[in-house]
């Protein structure tokens, strides 16, 4: 559930036509070509959606979408 919502938010923020093909192993910056400002926007949107706070030092550790989902699942 969290995964689907995260993918939806990422696709929305990046203006992707389709969220198809986004897997837990997909990298935000490399494969989806998000820049640093996109990443900040996505983290803010995730914080709003899940009512949590994602500290910058945690966000910097995320290597792929699976990491983001795991962090959210641990903290909601």
């Amino acid at each position: 559930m969290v995964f689907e919502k995260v993918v939806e938010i990422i696709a929305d923020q990046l203006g992707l036509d389709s969220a198809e093909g986004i897997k837990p192993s997909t990298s935000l910056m490399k494969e989806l070509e998000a820049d640093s400002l996109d990443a900040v926007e996505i983290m803010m949107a995730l914080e709003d959606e899940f009512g949590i706070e994602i500290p910058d030092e945690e966000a910097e550790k995320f290597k792929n979408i699976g990491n983001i989902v795991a962090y959210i699942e641990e903290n909601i």
Partner: protein
Amino acid sequence: MKLLGKTAIVTGGSRGIGKAIAIKLAEQGANIVVNYSSSPESANEVIRMIEAIGRQGIAIKADVSNPSEVEELISIAEAKFSSIDILINNAGITRDTLLMKMKEDDWDSVITTNLKGTFNCTKAVTKKMIRQRSGKIVSVASVIGIVGNAGQANYAASKAGIIGFTKSIAKELGSRNINVNAVAPGYIQTDMTDKLSAEVKEGLMAGIPLKRLGAPEDVANIVVFLCTEEASYITGQVFNVDGGMVM
């Protein structure tokens, strides 16, 4: 009209340069949020002038140095007008005195209003402008921020800070189609410069090749231009409006 349907927030928009900017933006079709700090009468007078032009205006009291008041200002503006397309960081104060006599409060209040106020307002509109993938931010600096002035160390530092801030934010937000520029007025006839002593005024005049004071409208003209699509390839720049005082 070049700004029809746009919404602009002008901080310190009830008097002087801010008032001239608010009116000229309205003349180009923009609806205006006039922020003021102390004088509702002057702000309401500006609103009446904006309405006489046929545009909508709203006066909102907020101390730009206070982040929560700025957030409130932006949310009222968003509720009234759906988009925020233009931010003019104009609110500014002086507390002139020589460094040897400058109190901590003289320093803090000028830096907090002029520089932190610019940070607060810019930060507050950025999220919306990033989502819109468009926006124009123009901050009113001063030539004093470029060349310095005895008795204005606090003011000069705040205005130089605005210039560095402008260039940094222009780099951060360029990819989102947001233009960020500054203007640096010289000696402009306003309440702020009326306070200067005759001696200081004479000294300033001697250094102006065009041999006259500027009018607030002289500054407003280029600010409005920077908010139009004609200026869409200009960002991170500082434009002196000073009769040639600083070259």
